[in-house]
């Protein structure tokens, strides 16, 4: 059983928690001392590079480019995934096309497959990268929003129907607001996948972006820059989640 903690225990847990972080950094520092820099640079070197990168305009520009692509891709994936889910929900005879054809195929489509196809089909650039990211993110949005539609309270809809026969009005005033929490959890998942997996789009066929910088650092065996870039992604991911997604979720908590 998960025992409840007293305040002293909570302080101890906190200390141990931060202690683990310190210990990890220490272990990293110790093992980096005996390894060449191209295998594992020390935490100090990586930290210093992180600060250097933060004041390099070229690096910041690439971060901006990647963030912009990620945001556009999430918006597009939410829109397309949501439209597909609504289509399957509102037009029953189309449901199997979405549920038994489009969703399973997109869901099992390997992400690297999209990246390679885009590299073959499109010129390197924003469009190709966003295409790949959207293709990877759609199934996550589709599945979450479809789940939300399944959980919509039928009685609320019936009540809505007793007030109006205008289907667009019901969709706008009732269905969509009820879907907001699911849309948010879709956004949260898509945001994580975008930074962690969909960045593969920038490894093949992109002349800019964080993924491109990572690949360039890796090919040049510049592990310090590479690790610093990885931590930039961690920071971006955590910042987006803490500053945007969590407040939004709190604002639209499931009622």
């Amino acid at each position, binding site marked *: 059983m998960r025992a409840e903690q007293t305040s002293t225990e909570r302080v101890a847990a906190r200390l141990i928690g931060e202690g683990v972080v310190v210990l990890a950094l220490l272990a990293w520092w110790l093992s980096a001392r005996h390894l060449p820099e191209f295998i594992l640079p020390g935490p100090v070197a990586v930290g210093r590079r992180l600060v250097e990168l933060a004041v390099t305009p070229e690096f910041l520009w690439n971060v901006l480019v990647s963030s912009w692509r990620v945001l556009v891709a999430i918006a597009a994936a939410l829109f397309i995934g949501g439209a597909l889910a609504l289509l399957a929900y509102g037009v029953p005879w189309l449901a*199997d096309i979405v549920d038994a054809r489009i969703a399973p195929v997109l869901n099992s489509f390997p992400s690297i497959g999209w990246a390679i*196809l885009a590299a073959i089909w499109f010129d390197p650039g924003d469009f190709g990268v966003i295409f790949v990211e959207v293709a990877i993110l759609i199934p996550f949005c589709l599945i979450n929003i479809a789940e939300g539609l399944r959980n919509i309270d039928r009685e609320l809809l019936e009540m809505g129907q007793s007030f109006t026969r205008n289907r667009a009005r019901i969709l706008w005033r009732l269905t969509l607001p009820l879907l907001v929490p699911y849309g948010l959890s879709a956004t949260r998942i898509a945001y994580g996948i975008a930074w962690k997996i969909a960045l593969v789009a920038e490894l093949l066929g992109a002349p800019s972006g964080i993924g491109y910088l990572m690949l360039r650092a890796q090919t040049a065996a510049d592990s310090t820059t*590479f690790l610093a870039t990885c931590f930039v992604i961690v920071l971006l991911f*955590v910042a987006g989640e803490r500053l945007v997604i969590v407040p939004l979720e709190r604002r639209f908590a499931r009622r």
Partner: protein
Amino acid sequence: MNASRTAPLWQAGALAPRKLVAHLFTLAFLAAWGAASLVAPSYLLPSPLQVAQRLWLFVTSARDLGHLGSSLFHVAAAITISFTVGALLALIAYYVPALRLAIERRIGPFLNSFSAIGWTLLSIMWFGVSPLTVVFAISVVLVPFALVNMSAGLADLDAEIIEMAQSFTRRRGRMLLRVVVPSLYPFIFATLRIMFGVAWKVTLTAELFGGNNGLGYMINLARQEFDTTTIFAAIIFIIAFVHGVDRYVLGPLQASVSRHYAG
């Protein structure tokens, strides 16, 4: 949905047109693909027929099946390792409250926010191009999934059942094996199913950049030779395989386990 269970008989017939429409959609898609492939050069878009022939070659060629075998090995090894590590971390957090914050608020979120691409390229720098690289990269990416899901399962344990068990035995090992683990079975299967899906997404990327065998490596070779037909065949095969295993093996397995232990 509840409505379909109590639907009158005449509505059962309504299922058939839906299926028919879905099949028509598949045909229309293939037709559109075929028509587009007539216009586009085959290195951009091979025809469905070429891809079908390549698929047949794929399932009859020992070399191609060998790549599938390597990929399967990578996936299985990585799932085993990461599930063990993730479940152990979750159990430690559960039994040692002092370490809970360290695991759930520090180690978990860190692993969860570190990019899969980062791990892949990093493990290439560490281990070179080898199966170890691939297995390591997939494993680290999967650990947070196992940790989060198993923690959710442990948090969901019925306190009364644990109390009852405590009245029978004080041996924690016995309780873990006889009560805690069986109550976790539904979560274990759900976790493995999620991990299987994610593993495939990461495996091909890891094999493409850091493998010397496996389907990702095969796709990479085809890419260098502009052999788009093989790329298409490999992608379609992977979709069919991943969806098939998930739908016809893991799904029923999970359903029967949940029925048995949750009922």
